[in-house]
């Protein structure tokens, strides 16, 4: 266990060396948040209620989405694992007496933790300063929000772990990443709240794992009954189930990959 904690610490310190990139991230995420929010405000000007969302709900979800970009890495970057499989660098990772899933999880959580403090918090603060957001008064709901956020990070990791792992079979996952980082923001309710989509499409997207990344945490914050099971608890269970399923799949595929893996390069 200690080794994973230490790896987590190393990852936090590693990301703390990327100051300029972190600052640029906050600026980009905030600016896009402002633009998105204004577009949605104009839309709601015409129709004050869409499928149970009002303008404040929509703007709040925009800033939830912008704030979690860093920690859940919905636009990437891919895990370093992907590049390490391509170059054969993964050979030295496999030599470590650790479980690959836990090792990469620990390092990604380190990255996410750093990103939460230095990207999510400032970005959300910009949203709070610029707009009136729908924030819960009940402290218990904030606890649920924190849990939903943590589960979103887990699902975000598990998905990116699977994309990267595909490299053992495909050699090069740059194509995979190009596609998923384009589609994920759409499926997650990041680009637009899923509420605004046609019902049939939204219905499908709501059961896919990507919904755990933005739509479910946002609805937990907003206290909507469109959550899975109609409740906060339902939403959390949905996320937890996806996290468990994807991580388990990751573990199974890792075992298979490393049994028949061909590590590249001399």
């Amino acid at each position, binding site marked *: 266990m200690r080794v994973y904690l230490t790896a987590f610490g*190393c990852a936090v310190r590693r990301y703390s*060396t*990327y100051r300029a990139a972190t600052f640029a991230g906050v600026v980009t995420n905030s600016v896009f948040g402002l633009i998105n929010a204004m577009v949605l405000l104009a839309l709601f000007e015409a129709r004050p209620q869409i499928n149970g969302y009002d303008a404040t709900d929509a703007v709040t979800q925009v800033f939830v989405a912008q704030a979690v970009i860093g920690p859940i890495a919905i636009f990437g970057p891919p895990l370093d694992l992907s590049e390490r499989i391509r170059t054969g660098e993964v050979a030295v990772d496999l030599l470590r007496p650790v479980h690959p899933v836990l090792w990469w999880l620990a390092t990604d959580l380190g990255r996410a933790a750093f990103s939460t403090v230095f990207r999510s918090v400032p970005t959300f603060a910009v949203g709070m300063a610029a707009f009136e957001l729908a924030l819960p008064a009940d402290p218990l709901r904030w606890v649920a929000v924190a849990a939903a956020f943590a589960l979103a990070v887990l699902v975000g990791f598990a998905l990116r772990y699977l994309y990267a792992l595909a490299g053992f079979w495909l050699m090069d996952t740059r194509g995979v990443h190009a596609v998923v980082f384009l589609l994920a923001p759409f499926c997650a309710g990041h680009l637009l709240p899923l509420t605004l989509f046609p019902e049939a499409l939204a219905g499908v997207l709501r059961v896919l794992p990507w919904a755990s990344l933005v739509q479910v945490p946002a609805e937990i914050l907003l206290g909507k009954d469109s959550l899975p099971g109609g409740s906060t608890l339902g939403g959390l269970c949905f996320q937890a189930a996806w996290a468990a399923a994807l991580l388990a799949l990751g573990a199974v595929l890792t075992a298979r990959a490393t049994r*028949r*893996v061909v590590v590249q390069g*001399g």
Partner: protein
Amino acid sequence: MTARTPASGGAPIIDADGIGRTFTRSEGPLFRRRRRTVTAVRDVSFQVTAGEIVGYLGPNGAGKSTTMKMLTGILSPSAGRLRVTGLEPSRQRTRLAARMGVVFGQRTTLWWDLPLRDSLALTRHMYRVPARDHARRLAELTELLELGPFLATPVRQLSLGQRMRGDLTAALLHDPALLVLDEPTIGLDVVSKSTIREFLLRLNAERGTTILLTTHDLGDVERLCRRVIVIDHGSLAFDGDLAALRDGAPSPRTLVVDLAAPSEPIEVPGARTVRVRGTRQWLELDGNPAAVIADVSHHYAIADLTLNEPDIEDVVARLYRREGAARELSAG
């Protein structure tokens, strides 16, 4: 350093019995791909006893790294039986990792953006080394490999030689009985090479650590390995004393002479001119290099001189040529 208690029973620390490895490669353009099977290692058998230093040699593409990957468990053999410290590497990789240190010279286990110290601290938890043992070994290795000046430097700012010493330390902090090195001196200057060689000798002499290394550097082999294993095209070509390998296939040194002006091939006793290109000539030496150099500079106007030691591939290449010739002779 205090010596390790010798492994009981005297079982070999590495026991390879007819191991082989094939790869399937897809070749050709996207829609007309053909699959081709490549044999990287074929029916290789050898044993290494605790306390040995063995050089694993062969030309590029011979299958050295593939063998190292099988020994460390990151690649499973497609044929044969392999045991390392009594374990089956690909199935018991994690347990084996605790008994083995590995350095792939071209890759690093260190965290690129963090001070070297942080990566080394991590190995303590990775291998569950008691804090006191870890501190003591780190202090020893820091002194022997002169890490002190750059322990606090981020790894990406280290020179190749410093990084390699860092990687060696990371591989040794858990005090493994076996050290596997794939080209540990690649790209290093003379001083760094010599630091690493002396260190490995000491590690072997004082702690009894068994060392298996691949290298293209004859200096490494001569300084470190009494025994060498040579593979070529995936097959075992030689396993025995370095001295026997050399005597079996003597290989001359070459003198490269840059003359002030083009000339006929140089003729001096103890040397044979094998190649001429413009003002540059290549001489194979049979005799004493000092005498030949004196002779050449006495009779010719010279701009520059270099003496090339034969490298191990050269020795090995000659070994094959001789074997090939012998085979043809006995067949004819």
